[in-house]
C-alpha cells in the first residue's frame, strides 16, 4: 500500500486517496473544432508508461484536494507531488 504525501495533510495511506488516472491531459475544444480522432485520443488513449508516470490523485477521504503525483509504475516510488496547475517537474520529463 502506497504512502502518499498529500500537499495539505501530509503523509497518509493510499486507502484515503483515489487515483484519477493520467494527468496533464488537455481538454480539446471548442467541440465544433475537435475531430473525432482528437476527441477519442482525449477520452481513451493513455501513455501507460513503464517507468515515471504522471497521475492525478485526490485525497478523497481527507481534505478533498486534487494534486499531481509522479510515480514510478515499476517500483511504485513516488518521485514528486506537485500542484494541479504545475507543469511536470523538471528532471523527471524525458
Amino acid at each position, binding site marked *: *500500500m*502506497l*504512502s502518499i504525501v498529500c500537499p495539505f495533510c501530509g503523509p497518509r*495511506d493510499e486507502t484515503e486517496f483515489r487515483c*484519477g488516472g493520467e*494527468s496533464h491531459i488537455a*481538454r*480539446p*475544444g*471548442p*467541440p465544433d473544432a*475537435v475531430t*473525432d480522432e482528437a*476527441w477519442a485520443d482525449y*477520452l481513451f488513449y493513455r501513455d501507460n508508461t513503464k517507468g515515471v508516470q504522471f497521475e*492525478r490523485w*485526490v485525497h*478523497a477521504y481527507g481534505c*478533498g*484536494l*486534487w494534486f499531481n503525483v509522479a510515480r514510478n509504475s515499476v*517500483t*511504485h516510488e513516488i518521485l514528486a507531488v506537485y500542484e*494541479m*496547475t504545475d507543469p511536470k517537474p523538471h528532471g523527471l520529463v524525458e
Partner: protein
Amino acid sequence: MSGFRLAEGGDAIERERPVAFSFNGRAYSGYEGDTLASALIASGVDIVGRSFKYHRPRGLLAAGNEEPNGIVQLGDGARSTPNLKATTIPLYEGLAASSVNAWPSVDVDFGAVNNALKRFLPAGFYYKTFFWPGWEAFEPFIRRAAGLGRAPHEPDADVYDHQHAHCDVLVVGGGPAGLAAAVTAADAGVDVVLTDDRATLGGALLWDTDENPEARAQAAALATRAVAHDRIRVLKRATVLGHYDHNFLAACERIKPSASPGAGAAPAERLWRLRAREVVLATGAIERPMAFANNDRPGVMLASAVLEYARRYGVACGRRAVVFANNDHAYRTAFALMDAGLEVATIVDPREGDIGGVAAAASARGVDVRQGSVISNVIGRARVRGVEVGRFDATATDEKALQRIDCDLALVSAGWSPRVHLFAQSGGRVAFDDSRQAFVPDAPAQAVRSAGGCNGAYDLLSCLSEGTAAAEAACARLRDSGALAHRDVAGRAPSAEAQSPIFRAPLPHASAKAWVDFQNDVTTSDIDLAARENYRSVEHLKRYTTLGMATDQGKTSNVNGFAVMAASCGVSIGEVGTTKFRPPYEPVTLGALAGRRRDAAYHPIRHLPTHDDQAALGATFEDWGGWARPTCYPNEGESRAAAINREILATRGRVGLFEASPLGKIDVRGKDAAVFLDRVFVNTASTLKIGRARYGVMANEHGVVVDDGVFFRLAEDHFLCSTTSGGADRMAASMEEWLQCEWTDLDVFVTNVTTCWATFALAGPLSRDVLGKLARDVDLSRQAFHHMSFTEGRVADASARIARVSFTGELAFEISVPARSAGAVWRALMEAGGEFDIAPYGIEANLVMRAEKGFIHVGADTDGLTLPQDIGFERPIKTKKSDFIGRRSMMRLDARRNDRLHFVGLKAADNATVLPVGAHIVDADGNGRRSGGYVSSSYWSPTLQCGIALARVRAGRARTGETVAVFDDGRTFAAEIVSPCFLDPDGERLDR
C-alpha cells in the same frame, strides 16, 4: 516406539502445571508451555494426520510454522478454527483438536485406498483423467476426498481488532539478529517495533546449538533489554503476513486461541497495519528435508526440530536415531541430542572425502559415520522401524547392497533455506548462492535490510553482527535520508561451511516415491514427470504438480522441488529460479482481515433524520442507495402491493407525504457559479431567474447521462442543485474534480449539503390546504407561487425552503428544513394533514407515480450508453451556445443516428399484464430476430387500472402506435409503443 517426555530439560514448560487436552477424541496430558505438537509427541502420538491426496499416515516433521503435516481443527461450533498447525498452538486446559483429512480416523482411514492407487494419480491427473463425462461428475468425490479442515457453520463468536502503527525501524523476527537490530536501533534513539511469531523472544537462540557461550550470553541479555527498552514496542505471537509497497507490513497477533478459556472477552487476534521508514528482516532460516523413498513416514523429522523439542519442551521424538544430513550443522545437532539423552546410532552423509572435524568428533562419540552414503528407503508404515542405507550414486541404486539399520527416528537435514519470503514480497530480488545452496536476498527494492539466517548467516556471531550492522545502516539513512545502498552481491562472503548440493537419494525401485511437498503429496517422480512433459517454467511446474500450493506455501518443499526440477532439466537451481512469493506468509483467518467490519458495521446504513417517526408509522425499511428508507407503510394485515396501491390512490385523490431527505443537495456558489453550471448541465443554468427552479440533466465526458435533478437559483452567484438520492456524493465529487483539475480559473465553491437539510414532498390535490395551515407567512396561492419556483418561510416554527416541484405529477410542495427540525416538521405535517386523511407514501409509490407520468429514473431507465437525445433531451445539444461536459461525444456519428434506443412507454395489449422488467423487444431481422431494446421500468398502475411500462426501444419515438413483441423467459407479450407519459399529459393535476 514413539516419543516420550525426558526426565529433565525443557525451558518452555512448567512441569508442576499439567494441562489436560484431547486429540481426535482421546484424552492426553501435557504441561503449561507446551505446544500441541510437543505435547502430542510427549504423549507418544505418532500419527497426527493423513496426507492430502494419498491419505498416508503422517507425523510431525517440524517444530515451527513450516510444519506441513500437523494440520488440525481446533475447537468446535462457532469457535472452531480449521487448518491450524499443531506446532503453533499453545497448549491450554481443555484444548480439543482433531486431524483434518481423515475419515473415519487417522489410524484407520478409508481414503488411504488412494495410496494403493497412487501410480494412477500422477501430477496433473486431474487434467488427464477427468474428461469423460466431465469434470463435474468427479468434482464432488475429489472435493470430499481431498479436503482440509471444515469451515464453521455458525457465525464467528470471536472479536478481532485492527491497529495501525508507525515506526522508524520495524524489526521482523526476535532471534539473535533481530534482537541485535532492535536494541541497536533503539539505543540510537529511534522508535522500533519488534515482531516475533512466538511467545518468547530469542528465536533459534532458545534451542539451537552454538559453540560460543559468550555470544549466547550476550544474545540472551539482548532479549531482556529489548523487552524493557522504552523505545521498543514488542509484538509477540505476531506473524508478519505481507510486506507491501512503501514498507507497509501487515502482521497478525494471535492473542488467545479462539476456543481457549477466557476467549471472547478480549480480541482473539489483532491485525497490525505497520508502516515503517526502515525495515530489518531477521526471519531466520528453515531446515530442508531430504528426498528419499518413504521419507514421509512418521518418525522422519527435521534434525533441528528434534533438538528444539528436546531443549524447549523436554521431549524426545524417539529412542534411537539415524541422521541423514549433508552439512556440519546437523552433526552438532546430533551431539546436542546425545547430550540431551537420545541415542544417535548412525550419521549418513552423502559427502565424500575430508569433511573436517565433525566426522572425527562423531566417531569419537561412538557414532557410526557413513560418508558417501544415503538413506535409500524407510521401513515401517505407521512409524519408522528402520532405514536402508546404501552408497550414494546419482544414477542407480543397487537394491541388494542396501543395509538395514534399526531405528525409530530419522533426522534429516539438507541444509537451510533462508526465509526470504518477506524480502521477495517487498520487491527484492533473490539469487541462488552456490556456497550456501540456497536462495538469498540480492537487490532490495525498498528500505529493507536482511540480517542473520534469512540472509544466509547461520552462526551466532554473524547473526549478531549482521543485526547490529543492519540497524546502524537503517539509522544512518534515517538521519541522512540518503539513497538506499544496494547490497553488493559479489561482496557476500562464501559460507564458512560449504554446503553439499545433494538433497535427494535415488529411489531403490521404480514404484518407490520420495516426497518433496508433504502437505500436497508431491513427489520427486511428479516433478520428473512434469519436466519430461516439458514444463520448463517453474511457475507452470508449480501449478501442474501443486508443489508449494498447500497451506504451508512450500516452506519446506519449494527449494527441494526446484532442485529436483533443475536436475531433471539439466540446469542449475539458479536458472530454475523461484516461484513468485506472495502474501500471506502464513494462512490468516478471515476474521482478522475483517476486524470490526462485520455484521451491521460491514455496510453501515444511513438513517433518515425522521427514522423513528417512520418506524412509528409502521414503515417497511429497505436499503436504498445506502439509506434505510420506507418502501411502504402497510396497515395491519395489509399486503405490500395493497399498501403501495393505497398510498398512490390517497396521494392522487387527497394528499400524501414522502420522506425525501436523501435527495441530493449540492450548494454551488461563487461569482462564476452560473458559468460553471452551464458547463456541468446539458441544458443552461445561467438564464434561470433568481427564485426559480429548472430540471437539469448531467452527463459525463462520454456524453452518457449520469444524473438529473432540479436546480434552484438562490442568488446571482448562488445555486442549489438537486441530484438523485444515490448520486449526491458522486456528483459533488465530480464537480470538485472539474473545478480543481480542469476549470481552475473559475471562482466557485461546491459543498454537498445533502444531510444538512431534511426534505419532505407534500403531494396531492389537497397539499396546499395542509401546508397552508402551517406556513402562514407564505402565499401558497397558484397566482403567487408558480410551478418551478421556490420561496422561503416558516413551517411549524422551522425556517423552511418551499419549492413547487413535483415528481408525482400532482400539485406538490417540496419542503426543506434544517435536519435538526426534521422530526417536529414531519409530525406537524402529518397532524395538519389528519383532517384530510393524509397518507405517508414510500419509495415504491413514489416510483410508480413518476412512471405514470413518464419521468425517468436515472440508472433504471438509463444505462451506460444512454445519451440525452435518447431520453428526449436533445434540444440543448442543438441550440446551446456554450460547451458543456460530454457535448463533443453527443456530436459523434453514432450519437446522431436516428435508430438509437429511445425512451418510450409500452402498453401491453392485455390491460392486466405487467410486462417483466428486463424483457426484450424483439425485432425481426431477416429470418432471425434481434433485440430491439428492453423494458426498464414496469408497474401496475392503480390510478389507470392497467400495467404500464417504460422502455428503451430502437428508433422508438418514430414508432409510436406500433405493436411490438416483448419476450421474456419463453413468454411473448404484445405491446404498443406509446408516449411515456401515461397520466395527465397536459399537466392539469400539476398546476391547480
